[in-house]
């Protein structure tokens, strides 16, 4: 799936998202308009329930908008079907969840490998890439362990390795240090720093001051709206 080249990786225009909870409609995002350029590191901040996770979910193609426009890597995600979005997530976006979300039936190595297997990469390439990524996150000795046998920090590092497996143009991380202790949080921050240095486009939803300092700019959400844009 070749994507159109452009300097803009993410562009949203009057993006709205509402959920129906019984008879009540809850507006989570209200008129979000912002852009992220190639190679930018953007931190999204805001209190709980401000819409950070929803915004990341929409950018990754996991969730859909209620109205408004969102173009990611040149593709208008509002008009794509589920199969396109699946391929899109697999090949062009790396997502790191706050709660790691590793597949419990797969080993560490298999967890890192499966996005590449879906992209039908040759077996040798997959093996080499898995070894390289596990070395990067310092978990090569844990390759054959199952997620339940890892600590939280280790699981988050595996989740990072998995997000980078297909060398995506865009990396999204939802509170990646939120569940970790200081030491493990620093490891994750270091990994994000490396990604920034390598020119990757990164959007991180976070409360972590260290991560916000690392960002080129910060988008603050409040009650579903952009409260401030700090360059």
């Amino acid at each position: 799936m070749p994507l159109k080249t452009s300097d803009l990786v993410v562009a949203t225009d009057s993006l709205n998202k509402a959920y129906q909870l019984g008879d009540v409609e809850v507006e989570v995002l209200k008129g979000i308009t912002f852009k992220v350029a190639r190679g930018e590191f953007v931190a999204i901040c805001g209190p709980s329930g401000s819409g950070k996770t929803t915004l990341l979910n929409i950018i990754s193609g996991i969730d859909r908008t209620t109205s408004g426009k969102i173009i990611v890597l040149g593709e208008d995600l509002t008009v794509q079907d589920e199969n396109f979005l699946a391929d899109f997530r697999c090949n062009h976006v790396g997502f790191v969840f706050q709660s790691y979300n590793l597949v419990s039936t797969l080993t560490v190595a298999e967890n890192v490998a499966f996005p590449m297997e879906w992209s039908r990469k040759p077996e040798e390439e997959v093996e080499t890439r898995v070894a390289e990524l596990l070395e990067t996150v310092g978990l090569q000795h844990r390759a054959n362990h199952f997620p339940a046998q890892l600590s939280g920090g280790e699981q988050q590092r595996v989740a990072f390795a998995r997000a980078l497996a297909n060398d995506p143009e865009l990396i999204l991380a939802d509170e990646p240090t939120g569940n970790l202790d200081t030491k493990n949080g620093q490891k994750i921050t270091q990994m994000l720093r490396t990604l920034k240095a390598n020119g990757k486009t990164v959007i991180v939803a976070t409360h972590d001051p260290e991560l916000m300092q690392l960002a080129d700019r910060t988008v603050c959400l409040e009650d579903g709206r952009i409260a401030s844009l700090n360059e």
Partner: protein
Amino acid sequence: MSKAAFPVNDLVRRRLQTSLTVVTLTLSVASTLFLLLFSRRIGLGITSAGNALTYGLSAVFSQFLLFIGVLIFAVGAVITSFIVFLIMKQRTRDFGLIKAAGCPNGLVFGYFMTELLTVTFLGCVSGVALGFAADFAATSMFQFQAYQATPDLWLAPLVFAAFFVLALIFGTKPMLDAAKVSPIKALSPVQYFGLTTGNKLKPLSRAGLTLKIASRSLFRRQSASVRIVILLSTVFVLLTVSISGGVIANNTSRSWVENAIGSNVVAIAHESMGVQYTQLLAKFSGATENGDFNYLNAELAVPDILLDELEAIQGIETVDARLILKAHIREVSNFTIDPETLATLPVGGSREGDSLIVGVDPQKVTATWSIKGRFLNAEETGEAVIGDSISQTMFSPDPQAGIHFSDPLSQGIRLQNGSFSIVGVCIDPINNGKVAYVSIEKLQNLTGISNANIVLVKLDPAADRSALLAQIKNEVNGVNSAFSVFELEEVLQENLDFLGSVWLTVMFLPLFTLMSAALCLIGYTMLAVEEQRQEFAVLRAMGAKPKTVVTILAVQGLIVLFSSVAVGISLGVIITLMILMPQPLVTSFIIIEIAGWLLAALVGMFLMSLWPAVRFAKKPILKILS
């Protein structure tokens, strides 16, 4: 919140799971009750051989019914245990949550016990009602109207109690286990569904991603997986026994009847004798012959000239002249030596009864019976071959009459002043198997009647049938206009149709069980969905398409089904061929027919089991994750 409000509200909120459990329990109870009621009806109907069939065939049917009945009860028990295990196992997490919130252990137990009792009671009551309704509906159908009778009401409390107790035993066990677990453990994914990790699953690590996830998940919830495999294996044993047994036994028994009557055979006799003969043959399917018929009436005698003329017609393969009469016969006992004590032991007694006696020329018979022993020898006139009903009624051990050993093949029969040693026992539909074949020569000597009273003629299948029949009728009319030609094909067809309908009834029995097993498989897939929902959401979020999720669940379903099929069908075939059906007739067509039925059941169950998977795959990722 009152004690009763929580369980009731909880059951109502979890509508799908609650209805699935109640429906499966209902079907399980209903199928068992229906089968007990229905098989009792048709079992009694079939085994009352005085009205239809022969004793040998009745024995085969009864054996099948008994075996299927036992299997169905076993399946019902396994299904019940599985479904209550499933519903309670799914609640382990809730148990932990409620305990973690500070609810006392006894109260939590009370909540879930109330739920179990409610679901079980509803399932059992509606099962009993549905069982009676199904029995009523089945016996109202045209084909089974003959079996109508008042249902055995005592079966209702029996089945209700059996299943209620089973459900409580199997449902309480996982509940007690969950109650013993601390809240932290109950909430842990490792405790949930007996989840285990381990390197013992490494052999599958080289398999594809889909197979890897599917097989490891199966291993992870091994207690549920083992239960569903046991359940489906039992169902497939039942299916194999009823389908393959039904098909093989149907074909085998049809061939017995077909061979005994003979195909392409017509009877030539005096009008009244011809009618009597066809009624004796059709007695097998419920017809009644004239009890006062005088077989020795001189008018019935077949003129020798007619036999000569029939022999001369081209296109006739065999002319089988028979002397048929009804007579009183007596069992002739024998003696044997006990090999250990060398004592002389009596074999048989002096039992008496009425039988149809058929005198034949052994070299000219038109039929080829299924015989234990051998047919008459042309050189030896003192031999007899008896029907299976005579064998079962007059030549089986009867301890009450002091007869401990009996073996027709080492005994004989006495007819008027003549004795015949029995050399074979055959399956013959005529007179419901109450028949004895002897040499026509000796029978004529004994009765003083020199002529046959019926002629069976086997036509050459290559000949022009209608032209040949016209020629035969012409010759018969020319000799004696009171004589007619009787087609036996119609009687044969009637008998075969009757046999077919009885076997269809037997095969109809496991349908309910198949339905409840399919629902259990759906329940198992729902358990898999429930357990793996987080995992599937992650896979979808990382780029898996909805069909990947369906494929993983389908692979799990196939692994479970194939494991069960392998065990179930092997056992079913062994039971059918080795125990239930001696000397089976198995042709390649029959194998294809059985394979087709079993494959249809397999595919049907598999497709039904995919329903929760397809439904789940359509859900948005965030809805799954939430």
